[in-house]
C-alpha cells in the first residue's frame, strides 16, 4: 500500500506570553514521525497537552493559537504540504484533508443551515455540482444514522442535539470525498451512551468511503475500536508507536502499560454492614425555577465505606452532592448524618456539622484560591474549626502534607506552582484537615492523566484505611467504581435506577438503563464495538 500521509521529525513551537515575563518559545511537539496508508486509521493518544491536536492540525498545515511548525516535513501523497504556498494549502484544506473538531457546537456557524455548511467546501473547491453535493450529503446523513436525513440539512445548528451535531460535522468532513480526515476527540464531549452511537457511525462511514483518518483521543479503549495503528504521545514526544493489537495486547513502554492496565484494578467490597454514616431518605430537589432535578432518592452509606454514584451528565449526581452539603435544600425528604437529622440548608447547619462533611472537586485548579499558599489552604480548616494557630498549626499542616505523600517544601508554594496531581492532593489534605467523617468526591480524577489519577485513587483508599473516613464518590467511569466502591448507586435523569452492594449492582440481571450504560463503556479490547453492535442487532431482531 502506498503511503498517503507521512510525517517526519515534526517539530512545532509556540510563543507563550506569561504575564509579567518576557515572551518565551515553548516546544509543543518534538521529533514525531509516523505514516498513514490509504484507507487506514491511525490513533493518536495522550493526555491533554501531549500535543496530539497540534500534530493533527499539522496535516492541514495549520497552527492554532500561534503554533508554528519549525521542523520536519509533512508529506501528503509525496508532496511536502508545508512547502506549498497559501493558495496550495487552501486547495488542500477542505478538499483533500478535512477536520472534525471536538466541539461541533462551536465549530458550526450559528447563522447558517447545516446542509449549506456541509456542502460548502465541496462546492467552493469545485469538486461537485450543488445537486451532486446535496445528494452526497443526503447519503452521508443516512449512513451516519441521522434522523430524517431529507430535512436534516434544513435545520440550524442550535436545533439539533450534540450527538447529531458531531455526526453532521463528520458528514461535513466526508462530503468532499477527502483522502484524509483528522478527527479531534470527536466523542469526548458526549455522554457514554451517545458516544457509542457516534463512534459506530464514524467507523461505519469511514469504512464505507475508504477514507484514511487520524483519530485523536485521550481514551485508549475508544481508539482501540477504530484504529489500525496507534501512537502514544506524552509531552509532545512519541512514547510508543505500533499496531493496535501490539499496543493493547503487548505494550512495551511503562506508560502504555499503565494506560492499558489502569482499568483492571478492582478491590473487594467491604462485607461489614456497620451503622450508617449517611442516610438519604426519599429526597427530591428542584432548581429555583421549579425544574425538578431529583426524584425521591433513598440511599445509605455505612461508616468507613465508599458509595459510588454513577451517571451521565444531567443525571443529577452532582446535584445530589449539593443537596447533601446543604447548598441546594431538598424540597422533600430528609438527610440523616450519623444518626441525627441534618438541617436542610447550609445556613441552618452548625460549624461542627459542617466540619464532619468535606468535599473534593473535579477541578483542583478552581477549587483552590490561587492567591493562597499551600500552608494557608490546608491550615484554614485547622484554625477555623479547632482554633489552632501558629507553630501548632504548621505542625499539623506538615503532618497532612506527609499523609498525602508530599513534603513540607511545598508549604509556601502557590497552587499555580503545583502539577495537576499535586493540586488534587492538596485539595484532599484540605478536606482531611477538618478531620471529617464523610468526604464527597465529585469526579476527583476525571481531569487527570490516567497514571496520576491512579495515584490519587490509591491515596484515597490508603487514607480510608488509616482514618476510616467514608466516601461518596461521584463518577461517570465504571472502571473507577469497580476499583474503589463498596456499594453503587446508578442515577439517570434525576432518578435512582439501581442501588446495592457492588457485587450485586454490577451483575445481571440489569435494569434497562444500567444495561445500556455498562454496555456503552468502551472496553480495552479489540472488536468490542462490533460485539456490542452485533448483540444490539440481535436484540432488536428478537423484539
Amino acid at each position, binding site marked *: 500500500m502506498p503511503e498517503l500521509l507521512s510525517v517526519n521529525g515534526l517539530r512545532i513551537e509556540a510563543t507563550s506570553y506569561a504575564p509579567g515575563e518576557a515572551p518565551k518559545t515553548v516546544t509543543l511537539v518534538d521529533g514525531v514521525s509516523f505514516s498513514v496508508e490509504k484507507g487506514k486509521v491511525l490513533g493518536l493518544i495522550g493526555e491533554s497537552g501531549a500535543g496530539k491536536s497540534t500534530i493533527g492540525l499539522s496535516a*492541514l498545515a*495549520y497552527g*492554532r493559537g500561534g503554533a508554528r511548525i519549525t521542523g520536519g516535513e509533512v508529506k501528503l501523497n509525496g508532496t511536502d504540504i508545508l512547502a506549498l504556498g497559501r493558495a496550495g*494549502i*487552501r*486547495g*488542500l*484544506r*477542505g*478538499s483533500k484533508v*478535512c*477536520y472534525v*473538531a471536538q*466541539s461541533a457546537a*462551536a*465549530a*458550526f*456557524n*450559528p*447563522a*447558517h443551515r447545516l446542509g449549506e455548511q456541509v456542502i*460548502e*467546501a465541496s462546492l*467552493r*473547491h469545485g469538486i461537485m455540482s450543488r445537486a451532486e453535493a446535496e445528494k452526497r450529503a443526503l447519503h452521508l446523513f443516512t449512513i451516519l444514522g441521522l434522523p430524517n436525513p431529507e430535512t436534516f440539512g434544513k435545520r*440550524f445548528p*442550535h*436545533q439539533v442535539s450534540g450527538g447529531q451535531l458531531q455526526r453532521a460535522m463528520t458528514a461535513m468532513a466526508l462530503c468532499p470525498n477527502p483522502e484524509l480526515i483528522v478527527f479531534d476527540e470527536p466523542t469526548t464531549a458526549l455522554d457514554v451512551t451517545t458516544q457509542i452511537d457516534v463512534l459506530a457511525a464514524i467507523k461505519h462511514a469511514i469504512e464505507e468511503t475508504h477514507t484514511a483518518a487520524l483519530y485523536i483521543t485521550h481514551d485508549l479503549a475508544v481508539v482501540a475500536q477504530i484504529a489500525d495503528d496507534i501512537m502514544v504521545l506524552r509531552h509532545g514526544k512519541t512514547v510508543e508507536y505500533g499496531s493496535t493489537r501490539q499496543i493493547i495486547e503487548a505494550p512495551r513502554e511503562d506508560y502504555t502499560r499503565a494506560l492499558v492496565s489502569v482499568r483492571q484494578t478492582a478491590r473487594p467490597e467491604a462485607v461489614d454492614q456497620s451503622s450508617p454514616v449517611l442516610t438519604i431518605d426519599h429526597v427530591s430537589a428542584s432548581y429555583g*425555577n421549579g425544574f425538578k432535578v431529583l426524584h425521591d432518592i433513598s440511599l445509605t452509606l455505612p461508616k468507613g465505606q465508599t458509595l459510588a454514584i454513577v451517571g451521565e451528565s444531567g443525571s443529577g449526581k452532582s446535584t445530589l452532592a449539593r443537596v447533601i452539603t446543604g447548598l441546594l435544600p431538598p424540597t422533600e425528604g430528609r438527610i440523616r448524618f450519623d444518626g441525627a437529622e441534618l438541617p436542610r440548608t447550609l445556613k441552618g447547619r452548625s460549624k461542627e456539622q459542617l466540619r464532619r462533611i468535606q468535599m473534593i472537586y473535579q477541578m483542583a485548579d478552581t477549587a483552590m484560591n490561587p492567591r493562597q499558599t499551600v500552608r494557608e489552604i490546608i491550615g484554614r480548616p485547622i484554625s477555623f474549626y479547632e482554633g489552632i494557630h501558629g507553630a501548632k498549626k504548621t505542625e499539623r499542616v506538615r503532618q497532612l502534607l506527609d499523609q498525602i505523600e508530599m513534603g513540607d517544601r511545598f508549604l509556601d508554594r502557590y497552587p499555580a506552582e503545583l502539577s495537576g496531581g499535586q493540586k488534587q492532593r492538596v485539595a484532599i489534605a484540605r478536606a482531611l484537615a477538618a478531620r471529617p467523617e464523610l468526604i464527597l468526591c465529585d469526579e476527583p480524577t476525571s481531569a487527570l492523566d490516567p497514571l496520576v489519577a491512579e495515584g490519587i485513587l490509591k491515596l484515597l483508599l490508603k487514607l480510608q484505611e488509616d482514618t476510616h473516613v467514608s466516601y461518596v464518590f461521584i463518577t461517570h467511569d465504571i472502571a473507577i467504581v469497580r476499583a474503589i466502591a463498596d456499594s453503587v448507586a446508578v442515577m439517570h435523569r434525576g432518578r435512582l435506577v439501581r442501588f446495592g452492594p457492588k457485587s450485586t449492582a454490577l451483575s445481571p440481571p440489569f435494569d434497562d438503563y444500567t444495561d445500556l450504560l455498562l454496555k456503552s463503556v468502551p472496553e480495552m479490547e479489540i472488536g468490542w464495538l462490533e460485539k456490542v453492535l452485533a448483540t444490539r442487532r440481535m436484540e432488536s431482531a428478537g423484539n
Partner: protein
Amino acid sequence: MAAAGQPAAPVHDAATGGLAAGGIPPATPADPSAPVSGSPLSGPSMSGPNAWRRFVRRHPLAGLILQRLGLSVALLFAVSVMIFGGIEALPGDFATTYLGQSATPQAVANIRADLGLDRPVTTRYFEWLGGALQGDFGTSWASRNSVSEQIGKRLGNSLFLAFFAALVSIPLAVGLGMLAVQYRNRLPDKIINIVSLAAISLPEFFVGYLLIMVFAVQYGVATFPATVYDGMGFLDRLSAIALPVATLVLVVLAHMMRMTRAAILNVMSSAYVETAELKGLSAFRIIARHAAPNAVAPVVNVIALNLAYLVVGVVVVEVVFVYPGMGQYMVDAVTVRDMPVVQACGLIFAAFYIFLNMAADIIAILANPRLRHPR
C-alpha cells in the same frame, strides 16, 4: 453581544457625558426556552402570567422584543419620577434661589404660589407627566415662554447636528475598526490603538476650541460661532455646523472604532471561523459569509450605543459653538435654575438614551439565529 455583554472588556468609558458601553444591560437571556422571570420592570401585562408565558414559548422573538419594549417604558416612567420627584426631595428652595438670599418671606411665598409650588407634589407630578405625554412641558420660569415651543425648534437643530456626526463617524469607525482587525498587532493596528486611546482622553471642549483656533481663526475656512436661524439655506446650515460636527466625530469615533474592533475580533477568533479556514475558503468568503453575519449584531449594537452618547455629547459641543440646540438650552436653564426647562430637557435626553439602548438590544435579539429559528 460581545461589546454590550462584557462590562470588563477593555473598552474605555466615553469621555464626558458618561455612557459606558451598554448603558442598560441587555435583556437577552442565553436560553430562549428559559421561563421569563417576573422581574419588577419586565413584561407588559397580558391576561395573566400563564398566558404571557405561553405566548413567549410560542413566539420567543416577539416575546423578548415586547418584554424589552415594556422594560423601556417602565424605565422611562421611573426616570420621570426621579427627575421630578428626586428634585423635590433634594434640599434647596427654588424660590429663594430665584429671588436671591435677601428676599423677604412674603416675596418668597408669593412667588411659590405664582409658580404653583404650594400645591402637593403628587398633583404637580401627574399634571406635569400628563402634559409631557401630550408634548406640553409648561412655561419657563425665566422667560415665561412655552418650554415646548423652544424645545421644538432646538431639538431639530440638535438632531441635525447629531445626524451628520453619525453619518460621518459610523462608516469611518467601522472601516477603521476593520482595518485594525486586518492588521491586528501590526503597525497600523498599533497606531490606531495609540491615537484612539489619546482621542478618548480629550475633553470635547478642548477639541472644539482647538478646531476653532485652527480652522476659524488662523485659516478662516470655517465659521464660528455656529449660528443657525429659521429660513437659513441647507448648504449654509451645513457649513455652519462643519466644526461642531467635526468635533463630535473626533470625540465619538475613537470609542466606536475600539468597540467595533473588539466585536469583530471576538467573532474572528471563534471556532466556526477556524472551521471555515480549515475548509480552505478564501479570506473574502470567510469574512463575508462566516464572520459578517455574526459580527453585524455586535457592531450595530456598538453603533447604537455610541449614538446614544452622541445625543448627550452635543451638550458640551453646543455650548462651545454657541449653537442653538437642546444642550445649550438645558445648560442655560441649569445656571438660572429654571426647573421646568431642566426637567423637560432631562426627560427628553433620557428618553433618547433609553430608546437607543433599547434599539441596540432589540437588534441583538433580532440578529440571534437561535431566537429567529426556535427549535
